[in-house]
């Protein structure tokens, strides 16, 4: 195997494993025929391979017996759990074990085990819903620091945690066999929990990182919908956006142009997934 073939095979990793197994050798053979004397792949071939690979992943995602909306609800869970962990970074700093609940619920969701994930998601939602105890109130006893560290949140902040519980409950009742999700979600929640435990300070870069991740993920949803015209990404994007925008409803403020652009972009990308899902498929 020469350097060119090795590089092509690396690019082919963009395709799902099953597709590579069935078609990988054929693709490599054709790629080598198009330019056998080269040392590095042509840029347009590299772009087409990565884009084709992601497209095949999108097509693989819509295959299977599950109804599209069930898969859409399952798709919404990892971003909701991740955002729940992000909004709880201070609680995680105070009670590192609470971070483990987010990690365990994400692990179960990634594996498609919603009935296992449900109790792990329910505990932080219940804790966060407890009111702050009044100073000197003996009701909580030695658990009082827990209520201070976790509870007393506004409804708009609780929505992320309860939405995850609600979706998990619906999927648990239906009992569909769900597909596995990317382990990158688990890596993401682990990073957030580690950050909460070790650092737990935020600044403009924190907001920017969150915005960047949101926009990138919604962009992936738009691209996947464009390829498949399937509505499951619209379901997931809408569920996330409804929860993410709740604070704007509870605390209406005049938005700065920066905030307005950010929310406008999130709304626009979510709207795009809904609109694109209704248009007919174009082959090629």
């Amino acid at each position, binding site marked *: 195997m020469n350097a060119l073939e090795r590089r092509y095979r690396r690019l082919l990793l963009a395709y799902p494993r099953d597709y590579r197994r069935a078609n990988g050798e054929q693709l490599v053979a054709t790629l080598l025929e198009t330019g056998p004397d080269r040392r590095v792949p042509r840029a347009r071939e590299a772009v087409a391979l990565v884009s*084709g690979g992601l497209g*095949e992943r999108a097509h693989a995602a819509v295959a299977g017996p599950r109804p599209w909306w069930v898969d859409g609800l399952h798709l919404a869970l990892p971003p909701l759990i991740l955002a729940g962990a992000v909004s709880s970074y201070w609680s995680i700093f105070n009670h590192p074990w609470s971070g483990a609940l987010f990690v365990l619920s994400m692990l179960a969701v990634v594996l498609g085990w919603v009935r296992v994930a449900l109790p792990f998601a329910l505990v932080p939602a219940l804790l966060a819903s407890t009111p702050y105890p009044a100073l000197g109130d003996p009701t909580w006893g030695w658990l009082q620091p827990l209520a201070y560290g976790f509870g007393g949140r506004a409804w708009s902040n609780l929505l992320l945690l309860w939405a995850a519980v609600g979706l998990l409950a619906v999927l648990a009742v239906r009992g569909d066999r769900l597909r596995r999700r990317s382990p990158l979600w688990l890596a993401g929640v682990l990073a957030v929990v580690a950050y909460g435990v070790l650092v737990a300070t935020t600044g403009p870069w924190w907001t920017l990182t969150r915005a960047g991740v949101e926009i990138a993920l919604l962009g992936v949803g738009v691209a996947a919908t464009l390829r498949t015209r399937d509505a499951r990404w619209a379901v997931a994007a809408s569920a996330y956006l409804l929860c993410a925008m709740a604070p704007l409803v509870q605390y209406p403020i005049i938005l700065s142009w920066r905030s307005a652009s950010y929310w406008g972009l999130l709304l626009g990308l979510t709207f795009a997934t809904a609109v694109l899902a209704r248009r*007919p*498929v174009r*082959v090629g």
Partner: protein
Amino acid sequence: MVLIMARTMSEPVYFILAALLDGPLHGYGIIKLAERESGGRVRLAVGTLYGALERLSESGLVELDREESVQGRPRRYYRITEAGRESVAVEAERMRQAAQVVTRRTLPRTAQA
């Protein structure tokens, strides 16, 4: 399905189907023929070609003809189906009619000039 395909067929897909009209071809053969017949305009990237072939197979417009082994590597030949022939013919007719809208106005002037 065929009508939807005909309304929304992209240029690469048109030339892939056109390349298969004379008989089965393998991937590299389709790339070369599509480039030649389009006057060099359609230069299919390999990832684009196989993505399109996958979708065309799912739509029943193209199917696998046979697989050979060349220097230890698989080489699959694809052939166009009856539905594929009909679809590309409908698209060609649509483009002919669309072209006529312009040429019937411009050609006489060109001839007069």
